[in-house]
């Protein structure tokens, strides 16, 4: 299984997050992040109307009207606040959330991402994906380097429907960290025992790197 890689990605993203930041975590790998924060405290926003989301409660304390955007039972941290969906998305779209950590189907070499629809399949769900892409101050993409059938998820051009014109800032896979600057993808760090040449082979997107291969 790839749970080891998924945790590795989550842990690496934790390094990017700063104490006290307001963060929205998408479904998939991003939901692993709270387990690896250590001493770091974030303020988690749940787009169904909560700022200050806490961990899963014991079974006896589950309230089906206190759930995450993934529809899982949650708790509230001290200082949490509740609001309706229009105010929640006003908060997201208005640029008040510091970081959105999102899973993707694809991200292209300019940072444009696709995370809601697969071409040729029924497209019946978008949820809050596009609002988060349009609104969060910083977008960090959490994704495995390749799809289940081995296709690169970091691509030259999106073949999946775009989630919006707003670009991601950073992408973290099990193999590497890349940042996007002015439409260019740059290798920041290699996370596995892979060479830059090998990384180029499994990455559809073109990326810049310095002589050591890292640390832009």
């Amino acid at each position, binding site marked *: 299984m790839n749970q080891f890689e998924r945790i590795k990605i989550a842990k690496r993203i934790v390094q990017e997050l700063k104490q006290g930041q307001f963060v929205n975590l998408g479904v998939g790998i991003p939901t692993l992040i709270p387990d690896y924060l250590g001493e770091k405290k974030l303020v988690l926003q749940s787009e169904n109307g909560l700022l200050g989301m806490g961990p899963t409660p014991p*079974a006896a304390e589950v309230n089906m009207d*206190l759930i995450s*955007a993934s529809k899982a039972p949650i708790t509230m941290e001290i200082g949490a606040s*509740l609001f309706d969906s229009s105010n929640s998305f006003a908060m997201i779209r208005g640029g008040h959330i510091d970081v959105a950590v999102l899973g993707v189907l694809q991200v292209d070499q300019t940072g444009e991402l696709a995370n809601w629809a697969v071409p040729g399949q029924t497209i019946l769900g978008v949820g809050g994906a596009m609002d988060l892409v349009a609104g969060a101050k910083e977008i960090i993409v959490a994704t495995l380097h390749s799809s289940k059938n081995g296709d690169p998820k970091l691509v030259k051009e999106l073949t999946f429907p775009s989630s*919006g014109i707003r670009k991601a800032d950073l992408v973290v896979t099990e193999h590497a960290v890349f940042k996007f600057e002015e439409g260019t993808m740059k290798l920041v760090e290699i996370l596995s025992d892979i060479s830059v040449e090998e990384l180029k082979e499994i990455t559809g997107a073109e990326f810049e790197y310095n002589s050591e291969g890292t640390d832009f």
Partner: protein
Amino acid sequence: MGKLLKQSEFVKFIKDGDKLLVGGFGMSGTPLTLIDGIAASSLKNLTIVSNNLGEPGKGLGILLQENKLIKAIGSYFTTNRDAVQAWVDGELEIELIPQGTLAEAVRCGGAGIGGFYTKTAVGTKLAEGKEEKVIDGERFILEKAIKGDVSLIKAHIADHLGNLVYDHTGRNFNPVMATAGTIVIAEVDEIVENGVLLPSEIVTPHVYVDYIVKSNYVKKAGVFVESV
């Protein structure tokens, strides 16, 4: 003057072909008792505006199974495979809107605003056919306000006037849905005397609420259980 109705009574305020605005996110804050009432009625050709269509045979999914629906407007229908199938079979029209745009469009519908320019979905498939405008150098698309014939919402506590408060994230779409329906029917867990709810804690003022129906459901061990 009383706004309290029995479950058997509220259906008469809905007509065939009506557009219903329904609160809820997944099963949370969903008016299950009102949905059961419609399922048991002869109503048909309804359009639903709601974030989801429940799950197969649960929540709004019941209305789909009972062939009450012709159209659904919302942000996420993938969790109900019945909805996906009905759409594939051409039996259900679906209009997909980003979740924040949906919430804002309904808020505008209730607020006398005709439409708004949002940056969400600019440059995507969901912006196709929508007017685009550059404001102060940034690209936006025009989204029209959404109104409905009848709003079906779920609150936690009402007073007899119809003032409402909600249970945690059960609030979700309910307060905005309450503003944009010509008739607004609220299912509630509990009804208290007027004056018990503090003016500063009321989320939906009673001006928005036409009728109240007591919920048949209680929460138990992480699910909603019919209590009668």
